[in-house]
C-alpha cells in the first residue's frame, strides 16, 4: 500500500473526527432589531393605491401584489392580478421562493393595513428585500379607484387629473361601468402570472 494513501486516510479520518466533535453552527438569519426598527420607521415601505394602480395599468412585470387575507375573502373580491398567500402560509416553502425573487416588488395588502403589515414585518425580519405594504389595503383601493366622486369644476387641476386617472383605471379593470356600480362578481381575481425565478443567490446547478 502506498504510504501517501495511508497518510491521506489518516488525515481524512482526523478531519472527520473534528467535524464529529464540533458543535453545530447555528445561524440567525433574522435582521438586527435596530435595522428592523429603522425599516418600520421608513414611510417608503408604504405604496399608495394610485402608485399601485398606475403600475397595474402599465402592466409592470416587476410588480407582484400579494393578498394576505383568507382564501374566501380573496375569492369574493381582490385587486386584479394579485395572488393569494394567506398570513398563515406566509412562512411556507413556496412563499419563500416568491419572496426570494429579487426582481419583483412584493406588495402585501389586506382589508386595511394591519394584516399586511404583519406579513411585511415577518418577511422583513427574514431579510427579504423589495417588500412593501399597500397603504390602506383593498378598502382604500376600492374607495379611491372604484368609487370616485366627480370633483367640482372649481377644484385644482391636479384633483381633476387624479379623478380622470382613477376613472380611467376603473374602466381598465372593470369595463365601462357607471362610477361605483361595480359588482363584486365582476372583479373575480385573475390568476397572476408569477415569474418564479430561483431564490436569492440562485445559480445553475452543478454536475460534471
Amino acid at each position, binding site marked *: 500500500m502506498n504510504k501517501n494513501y495511508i497518510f491521506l486516510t489518516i488525515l*481524512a*479520518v482526523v478531519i472527520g473526527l473534528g*467535524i464529529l466533535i464540533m458543535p*453545530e*453552527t447555528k445561524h440567525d438569519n433574522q435582521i438586527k432589531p435596530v435595522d428592523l426598527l429603522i425599516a418600520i420607521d421608513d414611510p417608503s415601505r408604504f405604496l399608495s393605491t394610485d402608485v399601485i394602480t398606475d403600475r397595474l395599468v402599465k402592466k409592470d412585470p416587476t410588480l407582484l401584489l400579494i393578498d394576505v387575507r383568507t382564501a374566501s375573502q380573496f375569492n369574493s373580491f381582490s385587486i386584479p392580478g394579485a395572488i393569494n398567500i394567506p398570513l398563515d402560509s406566509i412562512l411556507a416553502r413556496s412563499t419563500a421562493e416568491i419572496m426570494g425573487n429579487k426582481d419583483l416588488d412584493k406588495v402585501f395588502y389586506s382589508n386595511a393595513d394591519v394584516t399586511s403589515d404583519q406579513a411585511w414585518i415577518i418577511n422583513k425580519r427574514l431579510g427579504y428585500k423589495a417588500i412593501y405594504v399597500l397603504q390602506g389595503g383593498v378598502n382604500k383601493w376600492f374607495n379611491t379607484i372604484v368609487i370616485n366622486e366627480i370633483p367640482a369644476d372649481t377644484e385644482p387641476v391636479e384633483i381633476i387629473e387624479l379623478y380622470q386617472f382613477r376613472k380611467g383605471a376603473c374602466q381598465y379593470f372593470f369595463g365601462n361601468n357607471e362610477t361605483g356600480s361595480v359588482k363584486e362578481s365582476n372583479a373575480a381575481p385573475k390568476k397572476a402570472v408569477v415569474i418564479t425565478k430561483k431564490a436569492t443567490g440562485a445559480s445553475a446547478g452543478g*454536475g460534471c
Partner: protein
Amino acid sequence: MTGPLIPMGVIPETWNNVIALIIGIGFGFALEASGFSSSRKIMGTFFGYDFVVLRVFFTAAITAMSGIIYFDFMGWMDASMLYINPYYVSSAITGGLVMGAGFALGGFCPGTSFCGVAIGKIDAMIFSAGLFVGIFIFSEIYPLFEKMYNSGNLGGAMIYDMLGLSKGVFAFLLIIVAIGMFYAATFVEKKVKKVDY
C-alpha cells in the same frame, strides 16, 4: 456562483459570468488533465477496471463538505447563504436513471463530452450533438412531463435531516464510507482484468 461572496456583496453580481467562465475553464482543464475526456476511463467505473471517476467525485464531495463545515464553524463563511437546489423527488429519480443510462451508453457525461469535443474526439462530438437533440425533444414534449417534473418539491432538503442524524455524524460517516469505497475500488481494480487504453 452560488455564493457566499456574491450574496454578501464582496464581489459585485456583474462579475458572476466572468467568474463562472474562469471556474469553468479550470474545471474543464482538470477534467481533461485527469483523463476524463476518454470515454474508456469513464466506462471503467461500470466494468470495474478504473474507478478514477468515483475517487475524484467522492474526494471532491468530502473535501468541499469538510471545507464548508470548518469554514462555517470558524465564521469565515455563512453556510446558510449557500443556495441549495430544491429536491424534486420524482424528477430527480427519473433524471438520474436517464442520465445514468446515457452515461453507460455513451461513455460521457455532459461536462466530459465537451472536454472530448475540445480535444477533437469524434465520439464526443456526436454525443454532444445528441445532447442538443435530447434538449430539443424534451423542450418540445415538455407539457407531457410538466406535472411529473414539478411534483414532489421538498425544497432544499438535507439528507441528514431525512435520516434523522446530526450534520456532524453524517459527515463523519460519509468520510468513513468514502475511504471504505476507495479501498474497495482498489481491491476490485486488482481483481478485474486490466484494460489497455
